[in-house]
């Protein structure tokens, strides 16, 4: 029988989850530049809820 089962990894490496978005060195410059964005702008880019048309950011 040829069965492969792919399951979710167990949640045992908590620090990997807490520090998920590690930035590689070659992308650091862009990341520093993005720090100049207003908090609301950054939130808007992170938003996963709206239709990606932006919500007017009220």
């Amino acid at each position, binding site marked *: 029988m040829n069965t492969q089962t792919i*399951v979710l990894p167990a949640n045992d490496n*908590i620090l990997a989850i807490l520090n*998920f978005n590690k930035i590689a060195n070659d992308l650091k410059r862009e990341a520093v530049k993005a720090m100049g964005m207003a*908090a609301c702008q950054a939130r808007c880019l992170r938003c996963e809820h*709206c239709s990606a048309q932006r919500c007017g950011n009220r």
Partner: protein
Amino acid sequence: MNITTLHNNSYSYLRQTNEIVQGVVDDSRYAWTFTPPSEFSSMPEVYMFIIATTEQCNLRCTYCCYSGEYEGNHSHNSRTLCEGDIQAIYDFIDKTAKTKPIRISFYGGEPLVNYPLVQYAIQAGQQRWEDDVTFSVSTNGTLLTEERIDWLVNNGVELAISIDGTQPFHDAYRVDAKGNGSYTKVRNALAYLHNNTFNQYPKVVLMMTLPSVSTLIPIAQAWHKDEVLQHYAPTHISGLTPNFFQVVAKEDWETLKAQYIQLLDAYEQHPEWSVLQTFFDEIVSYWKNRPVFEVSESTPLSTCMPVNTKLYIDATLQLAVCEKFNDRFRIGSINDGIDWQKANEMTKEYYRKRKNRCTYCPAVRMCNMCLTSIAYTDDQWDTLCHNERLYHKLHMFLFCEMAERSMLTKPSVPTLQSEHCTLNEIERKDISALRSIFSDADTQRYLPYLCDIAQTNDGIKQILKSFRTYLSKNEGILWGIRKHDTLIGFVATIDLSTNPTIFFAMHPKYRNQGYMQESVRLATQYICDTKLTNELHTEVDLNNIASQKVLERCGYKVKEEQSLRFLYCYQNYNTELQTS
């Protein structure tokens, strides 16, 4: 910033690297510095324009920033733009927008108080920019008649509708000048949208204001039960703007923590309550997505100008970088253009206020204080900074707590692979393939209850939504069976903790080729291997010979013969599943 979770694990946040580490670590010695702002005379990223078509509103929401209770802001009045103003604004937009498509959002007051003007503005914009413009309307929803909804939807306009929960919660604050609630009209609009357009029209966003988190659980519960609201999730939940005309208290850590632990427990119990999903998604969003990298030099101060993507045009044709600025902070007008001197002064003032305050602040990388806070005095900043730091610490605590409770990784349907088939998650794009399986005569004969629900696309979406809930609670899994990328059938398990049951169906074109046998075998083995249950049951019609053969070949035995059906059972002590 250090926190300890309820399991007594300590975590520290390090500003310099934006990292969370285990244990108690002190990084308070690193002195944060901001790069002084440079002079600017352009805003190269602007593509979004918020236009306040009127300062009039048919409601008098008690927390509104235009209620007359907020320093520096106008109160509601009859000021309204005209068609000539719209053309002048559009001329300004033509000169100013640096990228396309342009996004125009109508704001107020309540823009639909002057609906003909909104229609005019949309049509004029479409004439001018054709496909290079999109529109949205921020509305209290009370003036959305069916006719207006039809027109707005047909013109592709996004609707940002304010709703604070079901009736008792919404009408506690969102009232007209006589104190009458507005909920019924808003709900009617949402019901019409859902029943008539929603399946084809995803551009409805719901904005919720939450004056007090103490009402969040009852709001979430009632929302989930409401026959209209349950089809929507709030897009954004915000608190009240601090109002120093009244009292803005310094929050207390222990009180806040106790309150939010209650909320988290409720969310853990009810992951399907969409209001709680939005609430906690927004809380952990920064923490989940924050870029982890070390800073060793000065960094740009996070300020909108000059990298702002939007401009606000008020009903007197004055400009601001954002609609949240109080009326004192305008940076020009449609006729005179942007006053660059004033815009630069505001940014420099903001830098001066933050330069020293933030040097040793643990929340410097995540702070939500923005350019609008130049309106506040030093004492007011002290209060806001205190609360800002406290809430970030609270959100860090919740983030770590949710990680420990496995609430951050959403369970997903496991992908199973056999010789000819792939079993994986069924998505919305599969709905038409599912319809053809459910509309088959044999499927309807042998799975009548399910096919009854699945008569419409809405019914199928409800089934998919139910299985997402089952999955989140380890109570069931729905697999789509695919041959290459084509959905050819499904196999599902439900009620795993009480009455573990399996059922399945295949498109007639793919029957009698061994695919269902492979799939039932895979699903059965997965359920038993992962110890979700040790046995599975199913009922099969006496005449459904094909399914009986599938089950028997997968090691299921007849447990009971009834007059019209067989009850089959699979027990995990079987050492091997039969091969064909």
